[in-house]
């Protein structure tokens, strides 16, 4: 394997490029029109255009991407997450074109990609699932039928896209009256995100924790589970904070959950990296939720608690290597890690997207800090894609140390020109329930009351006063128009640090 095309964009494309660099493998980026100057394009060895900005016309174009891979001379394709990562047609098209797809087989993707088929596979492997509809509900199924199925399951329930992922096409339904509008919204989002409007129903576990098990599986029959990740902090059914290990998982529970995860993966002949998601109920029972047949957004926390590079192992597995990792080590955390996803969203305004130009960027550094980012100063966050711009990971000897470092790192992090979720995390990391790990997937909604309400972190008088002083001093000391540098010397003045007098 000498050259890999990365069929993705943003931070995950950058992450894969770094893994390839670390292995001496050349990289080919792809880009849509608005991503010409994106970081993944700048860092790759080659970059091939794949179409207009809308994902359907570029990053979801199997034909164009396979053609770019062939023309560039790549011998493998890494799909990242999202876009075509869980599309069995793409995996098959790569295989048919003689390209190694760095992921599971098209058959495994198809099996687990259908959330209803995946539930059946889990049941067959002896793993409990949340009660729900076992067959997909197609686009054309009349509302009345869905209402009937819902009545059998009982409210509250979850509406989920069969082809789902990333919280898209998912709705909570509290009672029958809300079902039609939720159904319409979920189908429309599912159609738009996955090109498939089919959904299914599932009983809503009231206050579950979201616990997942990372797996690596090679082509020689070895399936290795990793210490669990806890992903209970979600908004809009999308993870926003993850940690590893989970304080809710005892060594015995870890053994049972990881064994269940391995059973499901073996049942479908799974290879490469994948994740089994579980709901952990307050009574300690856990249910198979779904399998993600790809790298997860939150994979770095597993990397820092075990010291294993998951992306490098994806590549090594794809080229036929045997998994020779010590299984005990993978289940023994060396540290506690936490990840905060930095989104271009305004948490003071219901997490509305906040795209635009990043006019200034200061990234945190120091011990126990890792920032996986697709952003740079001067870059414009486009409106066409997921608004996540980076993932900030911190770790330490204890959960408290990891959290303290996260607070420090967030205070160092400045993203100017757009709004981000950083203030939300600063609030959250001071919340006593979060600090005590007393939370479940309803945490954010409970804490915030109705979404869209007010500021999370009321600014105290002292900081308001300092802000007022800063604004006044800034205008008072700004270089006056009359003394502005001539264009030729402007260039030399970039970022100058000067005494104001």
């Amino acid at each position, binding site marked *: 394997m000498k050259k890999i095309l990365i069929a993705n964009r943003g931070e995950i494309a950058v992450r894969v490029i770094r893994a390839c660099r670390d292995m001496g493998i050349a990289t080919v980026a792809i880009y849509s029109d608005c991503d010409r100057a994106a970081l993944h394009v700048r860092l790759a060895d080659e970059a091939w255009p794949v179409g207009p900005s809308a994902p359907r016309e570029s990053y979801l174009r199997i034909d164009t991407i396979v053609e770019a891979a062939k023309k560039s001379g790549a011998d493998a394709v890494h799909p990242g997450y999202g876009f075509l990562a869980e599309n069995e047609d793409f995996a098959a098209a790569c295989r048919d074109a003689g390209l190694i797809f760095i992921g599971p087989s098209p058959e495994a993707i198809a099996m687990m990609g259908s959330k209803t088929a995946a539930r059946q596979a889990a049941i067959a492997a002896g793993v409990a699932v949340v009660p729900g509809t076992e067959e997909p509900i197609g686009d054309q199924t009349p509302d009345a039928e869905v209402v009937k199925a819902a009545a059998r399951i009982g409210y509250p329930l979850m509406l989920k896209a069969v082809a789902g992922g990333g919280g*898209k096409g998912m709705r909570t339904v509290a009672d029958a009256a809300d079902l039609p509008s939720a159904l319409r919204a979920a189908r429309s989002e599912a159609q738009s995100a996955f090109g498939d409007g089919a959904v299914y129903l599932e009983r809503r576990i009231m206050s579950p924790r979201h616990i997942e098990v990372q797996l690596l599986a090679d082509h020689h029959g070895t399936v290795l589970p990793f210490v669990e990740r806890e992903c209970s902090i979600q908004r809009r059914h999308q993870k926003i904070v993850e940690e590893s290990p989970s304080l809710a998982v005892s060594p015995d529970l870890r053994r049972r959950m990881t064994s269940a995860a391995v059973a499901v993966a073996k049942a479908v002949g799974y290879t490469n990296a994948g994740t089994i998601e579980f709901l952990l109920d307050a009574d300690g029972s856990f249910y198979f939720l779904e399998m993600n047949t790809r790298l997860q957004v939150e994979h770095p926390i597993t990397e820092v608690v075990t010291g294993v590079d998951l992306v490098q192992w994806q590549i090594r597995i794809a080229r036929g290597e045997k998994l020779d990792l010590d299984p005990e080590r993978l289940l023994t955390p060396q540290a506690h890690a936490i990840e905060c996803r930095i989104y271009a969203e305004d948490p003071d305004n219901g997490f509305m997207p906040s795209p635009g130009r990043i006019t200034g960027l200061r990234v945190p550094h120091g011990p126990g800090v890792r920032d996986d980012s697709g952003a740079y100063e001067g870059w414009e966050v486009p409106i066409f894609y997921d608004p996540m711009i980076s993932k900030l990971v911190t770790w330490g000897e204890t959960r408290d140390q990891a959290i303290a470092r996260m607070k420090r790192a967030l205070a160092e992090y400045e993203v*100017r020109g757009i709004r981000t979720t*950083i203030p939300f995390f600063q609030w959250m990391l001071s919340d006593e329930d979060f600090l005590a790990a007393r939370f479940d997937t309803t945490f954010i909604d409970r804490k915030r009351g109705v979404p869209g309400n007010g500021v999370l972190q009321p600014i105290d008088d002292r*900081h*308001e006063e300092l*802000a*007022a002083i*800063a604004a*006044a001093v800034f205008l008072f000391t700004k270089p006056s128009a009359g003394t502005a540098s001539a264009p030729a010397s402007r260039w030399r003045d970039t970022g100058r640090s000067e005494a*104001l007098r």
Partner: protein
Amino acid sequence: MTFDVEVGDAIRTVTVHRKGLLLHVAIGGRTHVVDVRRVGDATLSMLVSNGDATRPVTSVDAALHPSAAAAPGARLAANGIPGAFDIHLDGRTIPVQIRQAGAFGRQKEKGTGVTGTGPQRIVSPMPGKVVRVLVAAGDEVKARQGLVVVEAMKMENELRADRNGRVRDVAVTVGQSVDAGTVLMVVE
């Protein structure tokens, strides 16, 4: 030089004058001695004295940029410099508006809220496409009722009413592309 700075729910009056290499900044009845260095186009390193002390020692980095939330065409402070800033300071992001003293007029003073009780303008916070309009002109709406759905960045974002009222103007239709700051409807 005196400025009015709107921050939080109040307007504060700030007077700045130079004294040798330092600035004296009067605010809230106290004068702070400030030692300031510009460390980037829009970043200040300030050392600020505490209250009446004469030695500026509290270190504050403040980075300013034009407010990401302000509608295009927000008023300017002076010389074309935007007057609405997001200020990054001590790990916080604090929105402020600043004008030369008196420019805000007399309608607001310390303690009076910025969001008044007048008509409520529903503004798209980001560029996107209107995918659903849930109300029509003349409809009575309740606080927190969904009004319009804008799709952007692969998510459907429902904009809601802040308080009870009646829809006056609906300025957009389904399928229309809108910019950040576009007024979508007005609720009275």
